[in-house]
């Protein structure tokens, strides 16, 4: 099933998109797998995800850890650490 990926802040700028729809292969099981798969595209994606320690994620409206399975997710957000308002 296709997944809508949302990008924020510096990650959005590096990739040049605020959202895209992707259909990852079956061996992309977790958030960490998804980030690795996206980074492998090279270019802006590789740059955006170069420092994995600074990637945060959410599935729908809930924050998600790198190990969280993405099965069934319709919308996944990837972003740098939040800085407060």
């Amino acid at each position, binding site marked *: 099933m296709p997944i809508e990926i949302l990008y924020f802040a510096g990650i959005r700028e590096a990739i040049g998109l605020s959202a895209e729809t992707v259909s990852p292969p079956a061996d992309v099981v977790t958030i960490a797998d998804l980030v690795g798969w996206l980074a492998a595209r090279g270019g802006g994606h590789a740059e955006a995800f170069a420092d994995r320690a600074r990637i945060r994620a959410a599935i729908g409206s809930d924050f998600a850890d790198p*190990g969280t399975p993405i099965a069934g997710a319709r919308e996944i957000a990837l972003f740098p650490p939040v800085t407060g*308002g």
Partner: protein
Amino acid sequence: MIADIRVTVDAADIDIGAELARLEALGGGGVASFTGVVRGGGGLTALELEHHPGITLAMMTRIAEEAAARWPLLGMTAIHRYGRLAPGDRIVLVAAASPHRAAALEATAFLIDWLKTRAPFWKKEHFADGSSRWVEARAADDEAAARWSTKA
């Protein structure tokens, strides 16, 4: 006491008088508030705020409900702006109505502390020389983020 909670993330300016009047009308003894303003200096010309509509609003609502569970509040308002703001512009309003003035003030302090340090916003600073940079998460925020990222 069921608190009347209003949480908004909006690009528009905040009408402080109207927002506080709504809370005054709830019949409590008092309304506490905190209004945050974009600070200038260092050549800052604009502050750009980005948010994740679903997450930001959901988390702000959850924290406001937590405040209403901890203090006897009649109502609570949390309004945060996003988009491009100039020094001097309002950026955030937190307010609470309660029969007890200490409760209103403490709930306001609680919510603004969370909003200023841990709320899901990303900030970009624009400077007079044309440069810009994303504000880095502070150590305390990294630790806060680490807490949720190591729960797995």
